[in-house]
């Protein structure tokens, strides 16, 4: 069989775009460069904006936290009570 790459298949990687791909660590800005990077956390929108607020918005938002947020979103059905979810941000059920 040959791999497919149609619209349906794209659904498969949409999450990946939020979670994976080259990650530039926030510390690269501090320790290496004058190049400030605005690493944006759209994942947080999906996870619920409050998550972002919990983490002190963007300053402290490193990849680990981002990943955790995604994890929470991903497994939200298991520990729903631990995360007040934004109703419109969820498509499950």
């Amino acid at each position, binding site marked *: 069989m040959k791999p497919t790459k149609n619209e349906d298949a794209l659904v498969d990687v949409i999450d990946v775009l939020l979670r994976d791909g080259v990650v530039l660590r926030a510390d690269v800005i501090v320790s*290496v460069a004058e190049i400030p990077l*605005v690493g944006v956390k759209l994942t947080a929108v999906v996870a619920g904006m409050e998550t972002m607020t919990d983490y002190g918005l963007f300053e402290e938002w490193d990849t680990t936290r981002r990943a955790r947020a995604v994890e929470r979103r991903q497994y939200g059905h298991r520990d729903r009570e631990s995360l007040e979810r934004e109703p419109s941000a969820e498509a499950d059920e």
Partner: protein
Amino acid sequence: MTDGGRRDARAETPTFEEGRYVYCLVSLEGTDGTSLETEGVEGEPVRVVDAGDVGAVVHDCEEIYDSADLERIRRWLVRHQRVVDDAGDAFGTPLPFQFDTVFRGDDAAVHAWLERERETLEAALSSLAGHWEYRVEVVRTDPVDESTLVRADADLTDLRGRIEDAPEGAAFLLEKRYERRLDEVRARRRGDRADRLRDRLADHAREVHELERTRPQSVGELSAAADDGAETVCRLTLLAHEAAEAAIGGVLDEVAEEDGLEVRFTGPWPPYTFAPSFGEGATGRDGGPEPTTGTDAR
């Protein structure tokens, strides 16, 4: 959460006057020119900023892509993916960036970063050259017959026999045990099937990772078909050379021939899951495989 909290969060979204949204990095080695015909997120014109043999596929932006409108986010994500795809078609395997990565500054800032990280970036690009990410999902559409499972498992056979002979109360408890054991047996069979497939695919792939069996619910699912109750046996992601695609397809054909199994094979995708992290102390992300190229700048 309160609306007030959300407004606060919005208000503190980072702002910048000039920025470059980065889709991916590409190798310009052996290519002539840096032109790329594609349309970016929100219809922005896409360009390639180059430094030697490394190019960054970017568009000019003045604000972050942030929205509470999921359908809009989904369109952005799809567009992001299309640009990375087009870049891959034009320049070979790209190093895809996470959605919404924005450099503060102008082309010179991007150029300076490329120059500084050049060695690392070139190594990462050349290591991934010709390799793509493929995704495999095996679904059992037709559950294994319960009687088959009972015959194959001594515990289940035993429990079944005891339930028939037991008084009502005891039978109820035994029934519970039986159900639990049945779940275990099914899970073990799934695991064994997944392990066998993994081993076989590993012969043709540079890396194989097992993903969570349940697909994460997200913006991507907005238009996805409803689950029909089929049982996912496993979900795998592979980093493989494009030349191995046919061999992988062959392995999957054999799986698809098994009764009650269906295989979904997608790709080739840019190696999102296998992209390295850059920056001091960068390591693999939680919940994902470690970066594969060993090119993290440490």
